[in-house]
Structures are given as C-alpha cells and as structure tokens.
C-alpha cells in the first residue's frame, strides 16, 4: 500500500502542503489570522503564549512553535511577530529554515499592524506560489506518522472506537510507520499496563515519572485529579473508577511496544509507538501531536466533538451510531462494537487504516471541509504573570 504525499528536504513526508502563518505571541494572533484568512494555501497557528510567562514556559513556547513549524505538512513558514515578545524569534527562524523550509517574518511594532498585514500578504503569496510547485509523489506506508486521541468519550469509546483506533495504530506500526499518543492524565491507573509495554526499564521509568509529575502539578494547584476523575458524566455513563476509564482510554494506543517518551513540544524521531507527555484537552494536545510531527490525527469520540487542526487533518472515529447520525458535519467514520472479539476488531482496524490512507492522499476530513480548529493552544506549566 502507499499514499500520495509531499517530500520535504528533512526527509519527512507531508500529506498536506501548507504555508504555516505562525503567530509568535498572543498579541500577534490577529494579523496572523487576517493573512491566513486571505491567502489560499496558508493555515494559521494561533495561541495565547509567548509573553509574561515564566522562563520554562517561554522556552516551551519557542520549542513548540519550532516543532510545529517543522511539521511534515508545512512547506514554508511566515512568522508574525509583535517585536517585544519573549519567544526566541531568531531560534525559530534558524531551526525551521535548517530543515530546508523557507521562513519569512513580519513584525507589528515596526510600522503597525496594517503595514505588517500588507507585507505579510505579499510574503505569504510568494511562499504559496513556491510551495504549490512541489509535486505529489507516491510514498510507502512506513512514512506515515499518526497521532491518536480520544475526547468527548462515552461508553462506546472503550467498547468500539478506542479499540478500532488502537487496531489501526497497530497496523501503522506493523507497516513500519510511527504512532504517537499522550494525554498523560488518562494513564493514571493504567501505568502498569503501559510500563509492561515499554521497550526497557528506562522508558518504563519515564512513563511512571510523567504520571507522577502530572499528579504533583495538579496537587500544587490545590486539586487532586482523582477527585474529579471519572467525572459525574463518566459515572452516569457506567464508568466506576479512574482505573476503568484509563484502561478504556489507553486501548486507543494499540498493543505495540512503547519505544520512548517525549516531552511536550518535542519532535518525535524514529519508527514505532511513542508517548508525548501532554494534557488531554484538545487545543493543547492537538498542538503537541502537530509538534511531534504527526501528519494525521485519529480521534476517537463517543459524544462527538468538532475540533480539527489548521494543517493536520483530524479523522473523527465513533462507535456511537446516534452520534454518527446526529453529527454528520463532524464525524468521519462509524465503527461497530468489536471489543472482546478478535477477528471483528482486525477488520475494523483495517477500515480505519484505509481511511487514514485516503486522507493521507488528499481526502478532506469533515473538520478540514468545515475549516474548524483555527484556535489551538500551547500547554503552560506555570502562571501567566
């Protein structure tokens, strides 16, 4: 099997070919959004970070934006800067252009937003013109980098869509590709399953550490994750404990060995299954997958959710037939109940994998067609000051 994609100078393969208009700080979002609204072939990356944050968070913003600018689906980058932000613009320019991607920059404080807009529009136009000349080529399935996520979960998530996405994940890994999952919060109570799947003790220890750190951060803020999880809605839906919720959630990562654990904003290198330490909320987590280098996100849902990402197609998979019928504008794939049934699961995994190949070769997801998902976010560890 194979798919049609775009070769990048750094060896990665894009399934989309966008000029990313990246806002480097919260105050530059509007200009970035204006440019992306006007110029076909661009996609914005907007967020609330880059200023008045503690140094570890400023570093996290710079690192994440650099990784996001190097996502395989990005052909070139236009940075939209304010001028006085904490984000390290020079490092962004250097790291992104080192991958062979053209990088241009406008700064609002130089002569105002209207001038930055005018300059940015022209730059974006030039970058799109160059990017549009990159030809589609056929690539082997081993070039796939797929992120997985679940959200808006209900009982069908653990019974149908998570097993289906997990089975598709296993196929991607068997084909020599890469799969990435995260949402550390939902490892709680299932760590022992994940550590058993770690390739060695070092990776197992990293898994335990990220869960422990996430719990500590929650407690420092005066909360206990376990107190609010499972939620009242989860309990009403039949989930009894955090263990049960987590076991159902990690099913979406399939069954393959876990090769390594990366930090939020890191770019994943290598083949097989990886973890990115991350929160479960969509805006921040989808950004973590894009930063990690995912071309596509497989998103398992029960209740149905609309989120996409500006230049990473998000495929919604549900096992809830009512949701599929109620939300035709959001859900891409309906799968049957396969939990606990060996052969049915394999077929369902194959169905999801075929959708991945179609989307990789250009089929538009519901979120892409709707242009839903223009307001992602970046994770922060500390306060806004």
């Amino acid at each position, binding site marked *: 099997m194979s798919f049609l994609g775009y070769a990048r100078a750094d060896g990665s393969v894009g399934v989309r070919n966008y000029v990313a208009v990246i806002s480097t700080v919260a105050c530059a979002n509007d200009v970035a959004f204006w440019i992306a609204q006007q110029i076909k072939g661009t996609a914005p990356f907007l967020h609330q970070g880059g200023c008045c944050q503690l140094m570890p968070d400023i570093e996290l913003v710079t690192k994440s934006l650099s990784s996001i600018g190097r996502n395989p689906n990005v052909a070139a980058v236009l940075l939209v800067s304010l001028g006085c932000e904490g984000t390290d613009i020079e490092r962004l320019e250097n790291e992104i252009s080192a991958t062979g991607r053209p990088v241009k920059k406008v700064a609002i404080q130089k002569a105002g937003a209207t001038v930055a807009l005018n300059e940015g529009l022209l730059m974006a136009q030039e970058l799109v013109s160059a990017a549009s000349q990159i030809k589609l080529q056929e690539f082997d399935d081993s070039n796939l980098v797929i992120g997985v996520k679940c959200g808006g979960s*209900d*009982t*069908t998530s653990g*019974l149908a869509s998570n097993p289906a996405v997990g089975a598709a994940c296993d196929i991607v890994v068997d084909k020599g590709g890469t799969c990435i999952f995260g949402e550390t919060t939902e490892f*709680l*109570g*299932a760590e*022992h*399953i994940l550590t058993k799947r770690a390739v060695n003790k070092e990776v197992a220890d990293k898994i335990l550490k990220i869960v422990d750190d996430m719990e500590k951060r929650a407690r420092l803020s005066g909360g*206990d994750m*376990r*107190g*609010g999880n*499972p939620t*009242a809605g989860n*309990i*009403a*839906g*039949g989930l*009894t*404990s*955090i*263990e*049960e919720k987590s*076991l*159902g959630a990690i*099913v979406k990562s399939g069954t393959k060995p876990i090769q390594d654990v990366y930090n939020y904003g890191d770019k994943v290198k290598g083949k097989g299954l990886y973890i990115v330490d991350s929160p479960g909320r969509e805006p921040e987590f989808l950004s973590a997958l894009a930063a990690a280098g995912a071309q596509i996100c497989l998103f398992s849902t029960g209740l149905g959710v609309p989120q996409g990402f500006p230049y990473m197609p998000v495929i919604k998979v549900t096992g809830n037939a009512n949701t599929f019928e109620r939300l035709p504008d959001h859900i891409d794939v309906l799968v*049957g*109940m*396969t*939990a*606990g*049934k060996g*052969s*049915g699961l394999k077929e369902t995994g194959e169905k999801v994998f075929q959708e991945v190949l179609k989307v990789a070769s250009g089929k538009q997801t519901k979120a892409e067609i709707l242009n839903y998902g223009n307001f992602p976010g970046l994770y922060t560890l500390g306060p806004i000051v």
Partner: protein
Amino acid sequence: MKHMETREDAVVLHEKDNVATALADLESGKNVNIDIGGKTVTVTLSAKIPFGHKFSLVHIENGAPVIKYGEAIGNASEEINAGDYVHVHNVASMRGSTGREGGAE
C-alpha cells in the same frame, strides 16, 4: 462466534473479566446469555442494568478485585453475587476515591 454488532445483550472484554458491560438497558430478572471466548455463560440479573453499565458474572468476595479489560478496575467494597449491578456503590478505586457516593442507580 458472530459479529452482529450490537445484537448481544452484553460484552465481556477479556477472558479474565468477572464483570460484563451491558450493550442495552437490561431489566432486572432477565437471563442474559454472554459469549466468553466461544463459551456461552448465563447470568440472571438481580437489578436493572443501564446501557454501558456493568454486572457481575460470578460471586466476588468483599475486597477482591473487580476485573475488566483483564485488569483490576478496583476492589469490591461489599460481597457481590453473580448478576448484581457493579458500580461505585460496591467498587472502591485503588487509586483514590471517585469523590462521590452512589451514582446512577
């Protein structure tokens, strides 16, 4: 084994499991036939089980693990008989309380 998607009343996710998950709202007193790895097990329900909720397949001692996905999801906080409704009222999480009592009954 058939794969008629939602025709069955309940599903057991792993052969080690001592609970099943209802695939429909099931009435109290109903005899439920469940396919576990090719063998059919019959359990009589002692309570109404809503869709997505669990019931016990066997007798579970107070303090013994409640198993789903082949793994413990908590310990029984009282004696549970085959066919009993299994939820927050008779299962205690090993990873901290849910912070709530009762739940859907």
